[in-house]
């Protein structure tokens, strides 16, 4: 099955290459669009949603792409598969949990996906590994143009693209960059940094978007404003703060090495040790320890494991991924045992030869 093909890879956003990829995990841009001749989703009847799904599905399959496009009827998927897509960041939690006709088209390399009947009729998102916002914009703008040439979007001359929620009106654009900031967390500077970002209207979220905790020290920085500025200005605002964040994180890492290299080396080694030997382990603890290991590899404190392997473990040890890879439904206790076993296999003596 197609979904199972995805499970064995690690997807685009955790591939771990691209510029500044020791700190910048991925760049993401999404556009919210609605068709002019249908009500927004909150007022759409069941039959409206069925019509919308049909119309939009046909439109999306016209996107010219050298890669295959996989279309999934989200409403008909099993709970485990929906959770898998959320972990993969291909659909939102809201999309997984809502009702009615809805779907998602996923490019097979996972560089973009298009959700149908989420909060808006269309949510197009492009994800690139590392810091790569300009290329991501070119791609998403092209997809947007292709769809637009065959339909009429809800658009107002003064307010721009009309969206279900006034927080997205105008460009319908959300630009976000995911960063790995373990040293800022260890040195307790993270909250300060975020407060200063909020002052310039940038939002900070955890790994899985709004309301999620910053698991594994991953943070997403994105724009709050969508109206009154051009897409390029909004992208630049986020892009401009990324080098500053990278600089802060590098300084914090330098500080940790300078002030307490032994303490840091100890922390990293212990994390690695637990991951390689534990017999049962939760998802939270795994994320927390993998974060230390990831930083340890980037600082040259751990030599026998590669970053792409660590990145892959972040996603493969998530609950739904673990069950998809194992090919069985597991309860929490069994998942913790399976997770520990998976980690031992990939980080143990045998796993070290794996150069992914």
């Amino acid at each position: 099955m197609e979904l199972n093909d995805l499970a064995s890879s690690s997807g685009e956003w955790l591939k771990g290459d691209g510029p500044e990829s020791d700190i910048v995990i991925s760049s993401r841009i999404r556009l919210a669009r609605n068709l002019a001749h249908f009500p927004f989703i909150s007022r759409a009847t069941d039959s409206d949603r069925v019509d919308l799904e049909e119309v939009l599905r046909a439109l999306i399959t016209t996107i010219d792409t050298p890669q295959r496009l996989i279309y999934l009827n989200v409403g008909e998927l099993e709970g485990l598969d929906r959770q898998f897509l959320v972990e993969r960041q291909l659909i939102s939690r809201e999309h997984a949990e809502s009702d009615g006709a809805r779907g998602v088209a996923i490019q097979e390399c996972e560089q973009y996906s298009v959700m149908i009947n989420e909060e808006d009729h269309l949510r197009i998102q492009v994800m690139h590994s590392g810091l790569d916002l300009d290329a991501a914009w070119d791609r998403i703008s092209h997809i947007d143009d292709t769809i637009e040439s065959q339909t009429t979007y809800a658009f107002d001359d003064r307010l721009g693209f009309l969206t279900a929620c006034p927080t997205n009106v105008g460009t319908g654009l959300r630009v976000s960059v995911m960063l790995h900031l373990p040293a800022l967390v260890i040195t307790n500077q993270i909250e300060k940094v975020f407060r200063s970002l909020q002052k310039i209207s940038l939002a900070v979220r955890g790994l899985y978007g709004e309301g999620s905790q910053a698991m594994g020290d991953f943070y997403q920085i994105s724009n709050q404003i969508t109206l009154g500025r051009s897409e390029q200005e909004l992208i630049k605002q986020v892009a401009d703060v990324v080098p500053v964040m990278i600089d802060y994180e590098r300084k914090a890492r330098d500080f940790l090495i300078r002030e307490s290299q032994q303490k840091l080396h100890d922390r990293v080694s212990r994390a690695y040790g637990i991951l390689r030997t534990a017999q049962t382990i939760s998802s939270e603890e795994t994320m927390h320890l993998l974060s230390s290991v990831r930083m340890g590899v980037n600082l040259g404190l751990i030599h026998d494991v590669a970053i792409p392997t660590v990145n892959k473990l972040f996603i493969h040890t998530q609950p739904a991924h673990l069950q998809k890879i194992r090919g069985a439904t597991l309860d929490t206790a069994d998942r913790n045992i399976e997770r520990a076993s998976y980690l031992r296999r990939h980080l143990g003596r045998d796993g070290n030869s794996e150069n992914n």
Partner: protein
Amino acid sequence: MKCQQCDKTATFHITELTGGKPQELHLCEDHARDYLAPTEEESTASIPALTGILAQQLAVGETAEELARLDQKSCPVCGITFLEFRKQGRLGCPHDYECFGKELEPLLVNIHGETTHTGKVPKTAPGNTHEKTRLIRLRREMKDAVRDEDYERACQLRDEIRQIEQGGSPPDQTSSPRE
């Protein structure tokens, strides 16, 4: 040096620059974390709570009577009332931006600081948005007609919808020539 708030060693030395003259703080790890954590006010401010902003805005300059009347106001196209929008924070159709334009204006200023789009514009200019929103209304009327078992009216509406969808204006409509 000891932490200013307990007996542990102070490992964090913070210079606070806000509020006039610099203030020195010496704290242990635990107290530093507490100090650096955002206050409740700051953390809730991070994601603009739409309904909160709305409630705040409407509380200023509106009497209870005016508010009640405003809440009853509904969109002729999708039927959503302002009260429903206030409760769920989501609009019902594109026409709501026009219908509730006056009420939404201060909200948009609060969220975005601006009210005029300066970004990308569709290549195929949506010259007939009006006609499109008409479709939404017609579909709703058709559903109502079916519900009321007025099948003659429903058929009429269905034909009208089809005609617009296929790109031709219905005969009884005084619409501008199509591009």
